């Protein structure tokens, strides 16, 4: 679940949320072509075409509760991420994501502010299946593979390690409806439990992200359509091998134009069974994408 709000997580778990898909039908949901049809916390099986770049800038705010490791009351996390995706071939793209993070931990009314650069994520997305059934409808599946590497930051924001991850994402566009389903596994080799806000500690993690996008306008495309509004809803589940797991719901709105898109999301907890890291309280996110 791209509990990215937290430190280096950002890079690692969101990895390609921004770009995402692999279809494992039974597992999940799906989308189309330039990081398009992609909600904030779930990847889509879309990618930039050869020689085309997509820059995605996002801001996330996350509020976490008491930290069982440090005893702090709560933590506010502000994260700015820059994702660059580039089309290497018609079915292969490369992405690079850098998260800059600010964290304010409050303990007995005393603020402890810190900032740093989280792990840098490098990922390949390879589309293995495409079935375009009419001018609009399509089903795509892509495989995801990458690694998040230490940024060199020593202020608790980098895991100081190299963490491979693999996944798959499927995207389906059916008229006004879009579905993305992503499954992602992270082989975490480093990270400190004290700084784990979800998929940032030393334990492996499994993410299962589902997104539904409903095109609210225009109802029907016309020859003059140059943009579309979507309502989005995501279910983001994160399981860590230390047995911590939580499920979040992320409603939002998104606009996609011909060369840009922007998005606004909220994130709320649905179920949490976490003992080794702070509980998630809520989050908000906004972002913009530009294709060139």
């Amino acid at each position: 679940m791209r509990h990215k709000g937290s430190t280096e997580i950002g890079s690692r778990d969101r990895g390609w949320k921004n770009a995402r898909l692999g279809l494992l039908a039974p597992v999940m949901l799906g989308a189309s072509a330039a990081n398009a049809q992609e909600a904030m916390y779930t990847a889509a099986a879309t990618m930039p075409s050869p020689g085309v770049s997509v820059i995605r800038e996002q801001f996330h705010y996350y509020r976490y509760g008491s930290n069982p490791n440090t005893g702090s009351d709560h933590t506010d996390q502000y994260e700015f991420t820059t994702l660059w995706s580039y089309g290497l071939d018609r079915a292969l793209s490369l992405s690079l994501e850098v998260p800059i993070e600010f964290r304010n931990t409050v303990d007995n009314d005393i603020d402890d502010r810190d900032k740093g650069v989280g792990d840098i994520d490098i990922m390949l997305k390879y589309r293995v299946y495409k079935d375009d059934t009419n001018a609009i409808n399509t089903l795509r599946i892509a495989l995801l593979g990458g690694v998040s590497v230490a940024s060199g930051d020593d202020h608790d924001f980098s895991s100081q390690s190299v963490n491979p991850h693999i996944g798959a994402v499927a995207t389906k566009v059916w008229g006004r409806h879009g579905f993305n389903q992503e499954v992602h596994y992270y082989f975490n080799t480093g990270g400190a439990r004290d700084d784990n806000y979800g998929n940032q500690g030393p334990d492996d993690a499994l993410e299962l992200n589902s997104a539904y996008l409903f095109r609210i306008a225009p109802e029907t495309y016309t020859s003059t359509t140059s943009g579309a509004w979507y309502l989005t809803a995501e279910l983001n589940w994160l399981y860590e091998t230390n047995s911590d797991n939580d499920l979040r719901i992320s409603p939002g709105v998104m606009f996609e134009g011909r060369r840009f898109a922007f998005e606004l999301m909220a994130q709320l907890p649905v179920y949490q069974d976490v003992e080794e890291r702070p509980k998630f309280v809520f989050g908000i996110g906004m972002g913009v994408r530009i294709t060139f």
Partner: protein
Amino acid sequence: MKLSHFAAIALIGSAAFTCGCATSSPAAESASESQAANGLPVYEQKPIYHEASDRDKDLAKSKSPLTGDAAVLYVNGMGCPLCASNLDIQLLRIKGVSTATIDLGVGTANVTFKGDERPSAWDLHEAVEDAGFSLVRIAAGTPGGVK
């Protein structure tokens, strides 16, 4: 809890990808060929369900330069405006292509040419595939729009 959540998500996802997938039957576009212009067929532009005849398929593989000043590409898979941006970017990289206008309403790309150089149908086909979509057929067009 963990398992039930997993199962719930899996069920939702599975349903999304299996049901409804069977797109409403493509009331196959009745676009009948009405005439031939510059070696390319002309279709009555209709729905988003594009069909290709054997001749269309052969034509899309032709590596002979096209004639005329414009062509209409019937493309499948352009599900959103941002997705479609890949297509005009790729088409405009082809030598001889002057403009590329995407019409999401019918699922076409209207391409006009400039100068003496003309791309082949295969060039256009490859551009569409590079963009991540599926070219169904190529028809004649006019600089001002679809014929």
